[in-house]
């Protein structure tokens, strides 16, 4: 389709404007983290201080929250990867009744608003569940956060692995068995290496999703356990800490950019084994 030059220029301008729209707020936050004043008012380019950065560095609370976020995200990611990969293998290898329902169920936690998921899980975790023989209560804390986060991260791992398996030749597993490999060998030598990079990409995405989550976290975090987003949210309402919020926000952005780039590369690349 041939587009006229003005049309091309217009499209280009829209794209540039969109990129500006996406990045401007981030630049503003980064700039504010060096702002001497404590308000969200724009300083112009006059004031400049690194005081907040050194304060944030010395402050325990945000660092601990950062660490907590990493811990939750890491464990939740591992669980999500196991569950998501298993589901992906089942869904690509077999056709069965109710397959649609399963894929719907996997997507649901991420498609439903966080507040619904959050309230539902909070409601369940806070109940004493009586199974007759024994009763238990999930309760709140590190473990409840991990369960909640893993639940909505499964779909990310699943999507990545499914995409990779779908792009691979369906005959690879048969070829392996044909050459004499048992199921366990096929998994070790073929399936796992094939989906490894997709799992890594899915894992990074799941990690980011968990790391960033606030709504479900608010509802399922226990007392005495605070993730970084919780810390940030709590400190919106603490004027003294607003500059530290800017610093942590900027820090998270800086750290996540190379990760995002890596995830993108991994999910695009990789051998697909399409055969021809």
């Amino acid at each position, binding site marked *: 389709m041939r587009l006229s030059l003005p049309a091309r220029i217009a499209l280009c301008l829209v794209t540039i404007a969109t990129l500006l729209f996406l990045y401007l707020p981030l630049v503003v936050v980064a700039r504010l983290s060096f702002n001497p004043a404590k308000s969200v008012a724009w300083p112009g380019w006059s004031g400049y201080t690194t005081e907040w950065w050194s304060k944030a560095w010395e402050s325990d609370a945000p660092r601990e929250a950062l660490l907590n976020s990493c811990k939750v995200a890491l464990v939740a990611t591992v669980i999500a990867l196991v569950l998501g990969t298993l589901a992906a293998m*089942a869904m690509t290898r077999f056709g069965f009744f109710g397959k649609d329902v399963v894929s719907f169920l996997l997507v649901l936690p991420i498609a439903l608003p966080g507040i619904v998921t959050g309230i539902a899980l909070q409601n369940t975790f806070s109940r004493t569940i009586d199974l007759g023989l024994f009763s238990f209560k999930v309760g709140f804390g590190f473990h409840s956060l991990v369960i909640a986060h893993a639940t909505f991260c499964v779909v990310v791992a699943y999507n990545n692995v499914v995409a990779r398996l779908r792009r691979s030749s369906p005959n690879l597993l048969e070829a392996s068995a044909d050459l004499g490999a048992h199921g366990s060998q096929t998994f070790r030598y073929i399936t796992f290496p094939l989906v490894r990079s997709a799992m890594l990409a899915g894992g990074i995405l799941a990690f980011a999703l968990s790391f960033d989550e606030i709504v479900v976290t608010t509802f399922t975090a226990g007392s005495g356990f605070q993730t970084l987003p919780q810390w940030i949210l709590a400190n919106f309402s603490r004027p003294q800490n607003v500059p530290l919020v800017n610093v942590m926000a900027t820090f998270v952005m800086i750290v996540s950019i190379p990760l995002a780039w890596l995830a993108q590369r991994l999910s695009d690349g990789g051998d697909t084994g399409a055969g021809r």
Partner: protein
Amino acid sequence: MTAPAAAGAAGASIGGRASGPSRPWRALNRAYHGRRRLGIGSLLGLPLTWMLVIYLGSLVLLVVSALYELDPVTQKPTTTFTTANLTSAFTEWDTVWVVIRTAGVALLVTIICFLISVPVAFFVSKVAWRWARRGIVVAMLLPLWAGYLVKGYAWRAMVSPAGNQFAAAGRGGGGFLESTIGWTPGYGRVAIVVTLVYFWLPYMVLPIYAGLDRLPVSLLDASGDLGARPLRTFRSVILPLLLPSIAAGSIFTFSLSMGDYIVPQIVNQGEERFLFGSVINGVLGAPNQPLAAAFTLWPLLIIILYLLAMKRLGAFENL
């Protein structure tokens, strides 16, 4: 002549360091051969149990908990059944109005995202220089990683309105928009919609880009060759083929907007509870857990219906 394969297998031991699976593994592997249901069961068992028990179970419990009465003094759910919460959630005009308003906002956000995404995705996939494509896509993705609250906070700093003549020293300038271009929507509805669009835009751009990328250029050429002008080609060829991708993107823009209650808190500075998420949160905090549970049925129903509709359009293969 060739030795039979059996001899080859026997030759295994000669090589030493046999890496074949050990005996129990072999037995297990053989047990799986030809047993399709066993295979499906062991692969899907764990994830399916997790999702069914933890997630679906919780949703069911939530619905059930909407049926209990609230003790007026202690504000804890009692064990008495009542339909009052459901009645209140589904028949009171005020509630229904917020739901409609929220769905309207979610739709508006979706439409705006769509209107921005299509030209951008089209530019990136079909017009931009080949070497720049990947870079632009990654650039579109990166802000997704900046963190939800960080971005919400950024918008607060962007739209913060200017103070008036009564402002404290140094508080007159307002946020970035006010002090650089002299105009800001201020806190409120416009800021909410803009922020939501900002949040979910990449979720719409990406599937549309992927969809356009799969679209062969020859198809567009063919349409042009048959005499269609670009706009006509877009409407009659591109749009129908892109529908699944658009549907996939809209799941995110719609349902994420639908349930948000943090954005209104950040950039809405105490105007009315604009979105339904805030109402639910307010009721939950009241605390009136059963009523909040009844209220969550709204987004639950709307999103499930929306998902089913989008599934028909093939959205799930494009997520």
